[in-house]
Each structure stands twice: as C-alpha cells, then as structure tokens.
C-alpha cells in the first residue's frame, strides 16, 4: 500500500528527500566546506533522474487530487533531465559567486522546490493542487532570481517576477473561482460532465488560461519574460525558459484537452490568436536584442508561439508532438543558455557584440552555441527541426494551413536573429575577442550531453515513438 503510494508519487517524494538531505547536510558543513554540497546534490539528483526514467504507472492519490500516468511520469523525467543539465551548468556559477558568500545548498533547495511544485502541478487532478503546484514552483524561483543580491538587476527582475506572478495567479484564481461557481467542483473529472457554458464561466476560463499563459509567456502575458531573464542569474533564466515553461504547456494541454474539452471551439480560436501574436511579437522583439539573455528570452517567447501550433491540434497527436518538442526544446535552449552562461562566466560578457571573433579563440563553445541556435531555428538534421516539423504537421492536420504559413514566415524571421550570434561568433573578426578559456568538468559533461541530444534526438525516431506510445491517455 505505502509502496504503491511511493511508487505513484516517487518523483515528488524523492525530491523532498533530496531537499531534506541537502538541508540537513548543510547544517553540518562549515562555511568553507560548502562545496561538498555540490557533489552530493548532483549525486542525489542523478539518482532521482535515473529512478524517474523507469516507466510509470497509472493511478491517483488523495481522492483524484493527484493523478499520474506514464506520460506524466515521463514528462517529470524530462524535467529532471532538464534540471540536471541546468545544475551541471550552475556549478561554476555556484563555485564562483555563491560559495565565497557561504551559499551553495540554497540554490539546490530552491530549484528543487520549484521543480517539486511543477511536479505537483502537472500531476494535479484538481484546481487546488494545480494552484498549489503553480505557486510552489513560482515562489522559490522568485527567490532564486534575486540570488545575485549584489546586482540591482537581479533585484529588479525578482520584484517584477514576484509581483507579476502574484498578480497573474490572483487573476487566475479569480477565474478558477468562477469556474468553481458554475461547475460546482474543483475536480477536473467532475468538470468534464457539465454541459452548458455561461458567460461567467467563459470569463473565468479566460482568466484561468491567462494565468497559465503567463507561465508559458504567451503574448500579451509575456512582458515579464525578457526583463526577468535578463536580470536573473543565467541558470535561473534557463530554468524559467525551459522547465517552468514546459510544465506550464503540459498542464495547459491536460487542462484544455480533458476537463475543458467542451470549450474546444473557444480555446482553438484563443490559441490561434495567441499563437500568431506570440510568434510575431517574440520575433519582432528578438530582432534587435543585443544582450544575449534578453535575446534568448524573446526567442523563447517566440518558441512558445510555435508550441501553440501543436497544442491547437487538440488531440493525442498534439500531446505527443508538443511533449516531443518540449524535450527537444529543453536540450536546445539549455544548450543556448548554457553557452551564453559559460561565456559570461569566463569573460563577464553577454552582449552579442562581444562575441565577435569567438570562434577563433573558443571554437568548441561557439560550435555549441551555433548548434543550439540552429536547433532552435529548426534546421535539419538537428533535433529542433523534427520538433518543429511535427508541430506544423499537427496544426496542418487540423487544416490550419494559414497558421502554419504564418509560422513558417516567423521561422524565417527567427532564422535571421538566430544567425546574428552565429554571424558575430563565426563571420566577424575582432580586435580583442574573448580570450581562450577552459571550462570545468561539470559544464563540459553538460554541454556534451546537450550537443549529443541536439544531434541525435531528432534522428533517433524511437524517442518520438515512445512518447507517442505513452501519450494515448485519452
């Protein structure tokens, strides 16, 4: 019995254990021994990661408050992979910036807590769990955004994030309350059965979706994205752009496809409009960015628009393509942020102009950057292409050729700005390029895994087929 419960929510339990372990160990470490936490944290999380990769079961807990199935389990595994990769990148940042001030475990605790929140969120079977998960994921990250408390930008990003997140969750909550008023239940499986749709519920629905859209950073709910990504430590931006966004997309799909199925007509139009807005806005803003983090922020806004192309399909196909895309997107974007992070760590520079002549001094990291950006732009044979192609196909299957058309136009625009850093790094020569540097072993492992993922995730079709297999949940 207990074993079953553990098995169903093993991810959450393991993460909690990990958090507690790190907390406890941290108590016994003197200030100059903090770096041991790093190894411990990685070890723990590796265990969680491997465990989470085991196939999951279908089941529910707490009277349908907590649901799980192989797909959700797999998605958690994907998030774990992402977090693991981000943690690998964070090491040199922790060592350089945090350990001297006596921090180390705090980073892991915060990021794991947020991950825990996301895990709850995607497993949620009712609005309460959903809300709790959402908040649990947001609050630690707000703290993490403010981590570089010696920089004003970090604080500004944090205050923007916490305030806007709170506002969005307040609005979402109001929406949920309206849905509760009309449907009489906060359980997803109860909502499915109600028939008519009063205006009140529509407003509630829109408010609720906008709360999720805030997390995914869909236009016009995206405004925090660029500011926060730019101000936050790169690692946290990275986390926000992939893990948090991916989970939000996942739960959005679950919500729309199962409990809110009867609004299909509504949310199709909504998503259509949001997708167009998001793609154009994200791309137009990304065009003239100089700061790499800000640049990637807008790029990730645009990517969210592309994701909607898949979501709009509204069927199992949509589920599988979007999850596949998120998996690939995690690899691509983490690699892109990772490259930016590594460069910023070693040179303190994160503007595109500083990248000029980078290839001639640091060929490998430039290569990683290029592959990541090309993958984001959707260039074959890199993984990103496959992800995007299936998204288009999902939209096209429903007959939304115009949407696909708009999307491909946006891909062309996006290609322009994805080529800009490549241009700086490869095409240009510079008087004083970023000098050659060597990064540490954690970063290297992380980047190698990312590059391998970018190269082979698309070509190796069983990944997709596995996702397709477990996606047949409704």
């Amino acid at each position: 019995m207990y074993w079953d419960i553990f098995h169903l929510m093993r991810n959450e339990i393991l993460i909690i254990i990990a958090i507690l372990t790190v907390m406890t160990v941290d108590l016994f470490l003197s200030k100059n021994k903090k770096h041991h936490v790093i190894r411990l944290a990685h070890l723990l999380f590796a265990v969680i990661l491997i465990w989470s990769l085991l196939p999951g079961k279908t089941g529910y807990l707490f009277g349908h408050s907590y649901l799980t199935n192989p797909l959700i389990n797999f998605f958690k595994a994907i998030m774990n992979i992402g977090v693991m990769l981000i943690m690998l990148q964070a090491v040199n940042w922790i060592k350089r910036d945090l350990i001297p001030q006596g921090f180390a475990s705090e980073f892991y605790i915060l990021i794991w807590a947020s991950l825990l929140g996301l895990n709850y969120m995607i497993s949620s079977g009712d609005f309460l769990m959903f809300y709790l998960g959402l908040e649990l994921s947001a609050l630690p990250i707000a703290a993490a955004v403010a981590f570089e408390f010696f920089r004003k930008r970090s604080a500004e990003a944090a205050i923007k994030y916490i305030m806007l997140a709170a506002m969005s969750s307040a609005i979402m909550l109001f929406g949920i309350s309206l849905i509760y008023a009309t449907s009489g239940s906060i359980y997803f499986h109860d909502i499915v059965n109600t028939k008519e749709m009063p205006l009140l519920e529509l407003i509630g629905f829109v408010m609720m979706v906008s709360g999720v859209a805030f997390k995914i950073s869909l236009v016009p709910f995206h405004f925090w994205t660029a500011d926060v990504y730019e101000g936050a430590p790169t690692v946290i931006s990275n986390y926000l752009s992939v893990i948090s966004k991916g989970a939000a997309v996942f739960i959005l799909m679950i919500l729309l496809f199962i409990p809110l199925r009867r609004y299909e007509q509504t949310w199709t139009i909504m998503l259509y409009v949001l997708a167009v807005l998001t793609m154009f806005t994200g791309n137009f803003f990304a065009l003239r960015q100089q700061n790499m983090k800000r640049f990637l922020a807008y790029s990730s806004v645009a990517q969210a628009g592309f994701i909607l192309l898949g979501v709009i399909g509204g069927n199992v196909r949509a589920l599988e393509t979007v999850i596949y895309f998120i998996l690939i997107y995690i690899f691509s974007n983490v690699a892109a942020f990772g490259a930016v992070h590594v460069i910023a760590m070693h040179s303190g520079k994160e503007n595109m102009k500083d990248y000029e002549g980078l290839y001639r001094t640091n060929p490998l990291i430039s290569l990683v950057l290029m592959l990541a950006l090309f993958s984001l732009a959707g260039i074959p044979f890199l993984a990103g292409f496959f992800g995007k192609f299936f998204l288009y196909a999902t939209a096209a299957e429903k007959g939304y050729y115009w949407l696909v058309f708009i999307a491909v136009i946006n891909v062309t625009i996006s290609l322009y700005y994805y080529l800009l850093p490549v241009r700086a790094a490869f095409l240009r020569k510079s008087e004083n390029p970023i000098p050659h540097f060597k990064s540490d072993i954690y970063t290297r492992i992380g980047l190698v895994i990312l590059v391998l993922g970018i190269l082979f995730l698309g070509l190796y079709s069983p990944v997709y087929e596995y996702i397709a297999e477990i996606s047949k949940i409704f």
Partner: protein
Amino acid sequence: MDILTLFVIVPALTVGILLFTKNLRQARLTALAGMLIQTAMAFHLLWRYWQERSAGNDAVMLFTKDKLWFPTWGIHYHIGVDGISVLMIMLTSLIVVAGIFVSWKIDDLPKEFFISLIMLATGVFGFFISLDLFTMFVFYEIAVIPMYLLIGIWGSGPREYAAMKLTLMLMGASALLLVAILGIYFHSSPDGHYTFNILEIAKNAAIPPAMQKIFFPLAFIGFGTIGALFPFHTWSPDGHASAPTAVSMLHAGVLMKLGGYGIFRVVMYLMPQGTLFWTDFFLVLAVIGVVYGAYSAIRQTDLKYINAYSSVSHLGLVLFGLLMLNKTAWNGAMLQSLSHGFITALFFALIGMIYGRTHTRDVTRMRGILRIIPFIATAYIIAGMANLGLPGFSGFVAEMNIFVGGFLNNDLFKQTMTVLAASSIVVTAVYILRVVGMMIYGKPKEEYRGIPQAQWYEKTAIYILIFFISAIGMIPSFWIKFIEPGVENFLKPFLH
C-alpha cells in the same frame, strides 16, 4: 550497407574525419580522398544503373530501399534513383571534386571550409536520392545552411549581407515548400494512411484539384526560388558575387539544380492538375527570368554578377522546359540542369582563378589576359562559348531540346513564349562576347605581367569540367538515354 545510402555515409564520414585534421594539407587531402571515393561510387552507380536497365528492369526507381523512420507519421527513409538522379549525383560529385581542387590553397580556417563544403554536398546527395518528401526536405535544408557559413566566413565583398540574404530567402522559400509538403501529405491518401512517399502519393493521386491549385504555387515558388525563378532570384547575384570560388561553383552548379529537380520530381509529379492550372502563369515568369536575366547581365561589370545573371537566365530555361510538359522539353530541362551545372562551375572556377591573380573581378579593369594566362583565358572562352549555346558543347543540346520541345506544343501561347525565350541566345552572345572583348582580348596591362600560370590542381579542375561539357555536347544521345526513362515515368500523370 546499400549502394545509395553510402552516398550520404561517405561524405558524413569524411566530415567526421575532417574534424580531426590539423592543417590545410591534411584537410584538403581528406576531403579530396572522400570525394574521389564518392566520384568513383557515382560512376559505379552509373554503370550499375546501366546494367539494371539493360537487364530489363523498368521500375520507376532502382536500388530502392525503404526503412520506416517515424511510424506515427508514416515517415520513411526511402531512397532510390532513376537515370536523372544518377546523372545529378555524378554532376555533384564531379563538381565537388573540382571545387576541392580549386580551393587547394584556401588559407583561412581550411578544415572548417572543407567541412562546410562537404556538409553541403551531403545534403545535395541526400536530396537526389530521396524518394520521401520528408527526407528530401531535410536534405534540402542541410544543403542550404552551410552556405551561410561558407559565404559569410570565406566570402568577399558584402559577404555578411549576401550570406544573410541568401539564407533567408532560401529558407523562406523552403518554409513555403514546407506548407505545401504538409498540404500534400494530408491529402496523400484517400483512406487516411497518409504518406510522404512520392511514388505512392502519385499512385494514389488523391490530392483534390482544388488543393493542388493552392499548394502548387507554394511548392513551385519554394523550389523555384533556389532555381532562380523571377522575381525570387535576387539572392543569387549577391550570393554568387560574395561567395568563395568553390562555393559559387557548387552553388550555381549543383545547389540551384535542386530547384528544377524538385519541381520535376515533386511539384509537377504530385500535382498534375495544379500544374495545368498554373502553367501559363509560371511560364510567363520563367520567360521573364530568361530574357531579363540575360539583359541584366549585359550591364554588369563584375564577372560574378554577369554569371549570376546568366545563371538566372539559363535556369529560367530549366523551369521553362519543365513547364512545357512534354518529353522533349523535359529532356532538355534535365540536360540543361546538367549542362549548366558544369558550365557555370567552370565559369566560377575560372573567375576565382582570375580573381586570385588580378585581385579584381571588374571587367573594365582587366585587359588582355589571353596573352598573360593563356590557359585560363582560353578556358574562359570555351566556357563562354558553351554558355552561349555553341554546338559541340552541352548548352546547345539542352537548349535545343527545350526550344524544340516548347515548340511541339500545339498552343500558340507556348510557341510564342518559346520564341521569346529563344531570343535570349542573342543576348547571351552579347554579354559573353563583351567580357571576352573587354577582359580577355586586348593589350595586356603592364601590372599583370608575371602573374602565375594555372597550377596543376587548377588545370585538373578545368579539365574535368570541360571534358564533361564537351562529352554532353558531343554525344547527347548517351546522356538522354539516362534521362529519358525517368522523364517518361514522371510525365505519366499528364498523359491521359
């Protein structure tokens, strides 16, 4: 490993080995070795193909291999060749080899140069063997993207601008193509078993005419852009002008052929009704391209611009021939692809050599190079003559097939268009002779005395190309025997 997959594996392996090379010497030797193997394989394939056909194998595609890749979407790794692809593969491998010879002395980042070059070639090879729309598209884009780096890093002039423009226009076009491919895919089968397999889609013939009318122009423009369809050709002059020699060769010689080939293999084959509906419209565009490219070339002073516009004109003829929808014209279009590939590669190779010696590409600033570098200048004259359709060289055969084919249509409009297109041969003569008169003839300038003669590697490249230009020009029937069965098969949707 089957015989066709090797065409992708060998270049990929070459790229892999190139990653570990240390200097120019190693890099160029590795690249050369890989591509020589590829060329040998290409000729082996030619021979095998010949054997199969002689043995009475009259399947549409030979050496096919079909491997399920993404079962959910019905994406296959499906490859196969007919005579046309075989010839295109031969063309590509030869031009890559010639390109490597031409870049024998590349000094900046040699390893990366060869990697990008061969990466591009990989895409092209893959494109020519694919029978699955998805794989075809994948290879197509693989072929386009290295161009950005190749032009951007090793180019000259406004290279960043040119590279960006080229990439964006080609990728934009391929984006349109993508929409069309999806459109085709979701109408590919009457019973919902959608497929990307070209042959199967054609067999099903399930795409409703209304849909064909929508997706035909998208796909046509998608492929047409890389085939320099007016008015989507403007990437080509800038791109060619800025690209390094080998890249111009490969680009004009091979990459631009993807357009005509794709239109032939995919767009027209799968959407016959759409084709019939849109023929006249695109015919006008093609003819404008032919004439307009030729006239634009007259005014240029940069050698590469002249040739780029010349390519616009000559590739316009490919599209023109395809739109004529009969065997003769299609034979001509395919021959023209082949012929223009060799001729333009030769041109760009020579321009690169001249530029490397005189450091200018401005025809008004050069004079009398025939006296100074007779080998290169003579080769340039030969290339020019081949380009203006002198009998005995490949251009003539191809163009005559196109014109005669165009005229065989019992349609006054098409015949008039043919005459208009044919008028370009006069203009071609004008711009070729202008260059010859200004740059090659005349009293040599003093400052050019003592510039080096053609080196052995340059000569090798030139010999290879001239050999094939004349071989096609002298015995066209041999090459048409390869082309014809393919053309006949792909013409079937139009014959009922």
